[in-house]
């Protein structure tokens, strides 16, 4: 299979980016993704269930994630739940997006647009 270019998907919408990031350290079901995003961004990014599944659908259609049958701990889990796994392409896209943002930040820093250290 030919290697896909992540470039056309950039920049990612914040919701898509955060979902990819949430899946970077392991497979999660919908509600777990939601909570992960909320926790990591300290509530700055809040996804509604509708938005989340619209994002998941898009990511599934673009092969950035896939549904998985593996349960991390079957004993603890509701069997109906669907788990999502980051694909290697999804990982590439997330990395490409991170690099893009880093480049943007570097450019901004060169123009003295730095974030001032917070006074204690």
């Amino acid at each position: 299979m030919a290697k896909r270019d992540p470039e056309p998907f950039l920049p990612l919408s914040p919701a898509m980016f955060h979902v990819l990031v949430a899946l970077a350290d392991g497979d999660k079901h919908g509600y777990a993704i939601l909570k992960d995003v909320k926790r990591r961004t300290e509530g700055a990014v809040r996804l509604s269930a509708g938005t989340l599944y619209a994002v998941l659908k898009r990511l599934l259609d673009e092969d950035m994630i896939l549904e998985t049958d593996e349960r991390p701990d079957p004993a603890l889990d509701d069997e109906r739940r669907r788990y999502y796994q980051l694909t290697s392409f999804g990982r590439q896209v997330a990395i490409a997006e991170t690099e893009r943002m880093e480049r943007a930040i570097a450019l901004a820093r060169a123009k003295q647009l730095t974030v001032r250290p917070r006074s204690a």
Partner: protein
Amino acid sequence: MRVYRALLRLLPLEFRDRFGRDLEDVFRAQQREAADTGTAGRLGLWLETLSGLLLVAPREHLSILRQDTVLAWRMMRRRPALSIAAVSILAIALGATTAVFSVVNAVILRPLPYPAPERIVVINERDRDGSSTNVSPPMLRALRAEARQLAHVAALVSNSLPMQPGGAPLVDASEVTAGYFEVYGVQPAHGRLLRAAPIGQPQPDEALLTHDYWTRQYAGDPRAVGQRLALARGPAVIVGVLPRDFRRRESSDVYVPLAFTADALRAGMFGATYLDVVGRLAPGAEPAAAQAELAAIAARARAAAGFKAEGRGVFVTRLHDVLIAGHRTTLWLMFGTVTLVLLVAAANVSSLLLVNAVTREEELAIRAALGASAVRLFRQVLTESLVLASLASLGALGVAALVLRPLVARLPPGLPRLNEIGLDWRVLAFAAAAALVLGTLLGLAPAARVSARRLFRLLTTAGRQASSRESAFARRALLALEVAATFVLLVAGVLMTQRFLALQRADLGFSPDNVVTAFVSLPPDRYATPEHQRVFARRLLEETRAIHGATAAGIDCNPPLGFMTMWFGYQFEDRPAPKGDRMSAQFHCVDGRSFAAFGTRILDGRAFDERDGGDTHRVVIINEWMAKRYWPGQSPVGRRIMVITGSGYHPREIVGIASSRRHQGLVEPETAELYVPLADHPSNNLTLAVRVDGARDTAPARVREALARVDPALGVVSINWMSEDVAALLAPYRFQALLMGAFALTALLLSLVCIHGVTTYVVSLRKREMGVRIALGASPGRVTRLVIADALRPIAVGVVLGIAAAVGLSRALRLDLAGLNVATAGTADPLTLALAVAILLVVALGATWIPARRATRVDPLTALRQA
């Protein structure tokens, strides 16, 4: 949870199928979590959920629509010939419908271009016989003084005012009273409006230009304001210019104040109803209440002047209703028929699309097998036809823009607001809505056939054959519908043509062929006395009778089709007026030869001669209508009747009976007409009629020369062939006949294509059966008859439906023809229906003949092997 589930219905079904349960799970978990955070937390969750759904749902729907549209586009490109045919048929039919709608829109639907136009009303007096007349000056004064339901009342008289020599001879003027522009709520484009003085007082010598006239005569120069307009009666100062969009029924060049003489306003002038009166309803007033109030005022004013008020009254009608009266039915009828054409076209396209239905369904079956849900396929099929309809509606706008100008040019000239016709947002909205409806209708039939089970069955041979049979049934049903609509259009076309031909042949009471008419308006300063006018008339007749080829020449002060009326009262010496009779007649002052010149027949007695006229020979000629009404079964010649003329109110001896003439139009009911010798009632406004025999080409020029010989200073006089005036009156009927004919022909053509297509298709399905029949010895004639009989069945159903619809339609048409004594025109009589059936049958037989012949050439061996 139930609320949440209901909210989820906003999402596309596919999305719900895929993620619905997960969404519910997540929401349930969120709710559990929020339960700990109190009311604010729960509220926040709902808010977040709702906004999320509202954001996501439209986006998901759109994305499916986008996919389907791309897919539909690909499907259409795969069958370019079919797609182009379908789109063009629809575009042409929808374009015609849109064009007609834009006429309906401009004339009927769009509000008039004045502030609060629904408050503008037209005021008429009610005559004894219930007919509506204009308003007299003393009545206007009474209404203006007392009406509380009206904020403004004003009158207008349209006139051609003579100009001083050197420029144009006449200017079309509207003389208006104070308050006229307040009624319409118009503001000047330049300068100011007229400062008309109250009724009865001297009026300022001012003139207000229309935008048209200002552009034409003053090249749109604002410095025109302040200049003098050289009217023959004395110059008027131009005080302003009206805005471009102020267009009224009267096609005036200038507006000047209307001055009444003291004589015009005296109580005796209640009969002089010549003012066009308009009003603006006071805030909160309704036409009905205003009508009641004005009727009471009118009754008091008449009673105070010693007139009887019996049977009289006042009509208050909204301006818009007055403008479109008589056109509403015609226009809606036109719209109805063009919609029928559209229906025929849609049925045709639907039938075209079904040709591919079977192959198309196989594709769908494969997609269904690959996991596409039925709903998804349903949506897909519907989107396809909507894309088709959308493309057609774009094309339709182009077609509408193209045909609109020629259509408007051919519309009956009397139609109001023609200059407002164009493509505005309403028309665009109509085209869009029509596309939506069409697309849905076209798509529903094939879409309804999409069900997973049916589709899977299609993958088998037997299933395919069953589907072909279903498709053949659908096509026959469509064909029946199409034939029904075509039949109605045919009947309408035949009816309209019959009506036109009947009117063309109708007896007008005079004969307009080979008659040149010239309207002459004598300047009052040079023709001040009756003697001057008499001398002019005598000399003019001498000159014109000498014209080469002229067989008769005569003068009438009130000619037929002259677009004016003169109503004069009459009485009987020996008996009271019959109840409900108007007791006024179209008044004609004529010379003796005018009957021959106009071709008015003298049915009894004689025409005027040199003896007639003056105090010694007070004579009158009445028309056939009066003779039959007042002296039924006997000859009125020799009887006497009281008639008002310029020389007073005298009894006159009836010396002749003239044929009743249609004075104002072709469908106008006959009414009373009186003729008195020109010598008894000389006039400044005369119409000369010259009947010629050969030398047609030069006749108008010879008449003009004769006029110049009598008075070289008369200037331009309008000279017409009377037959052209009649043709102009026939024009609307000719237009309707042509339009209906064109519609019917289009529908017939589409039906022909459809019948041919369906028959061919059915023959191809029954190829095997035909093969067997031929193998068993059926003759070619028998096979042909079989195919044709089979094809005629849906056509017969269509014709039966069509007859029912046509009979209903003819009822509506008969309304339109009230007062027209043209036998058989306008009713769907058996003959008309039979004619329509015959036309359809011939077309149907022609369309089925070729496929039927082809069926006879089926080679039994090949047909059997194929199956």
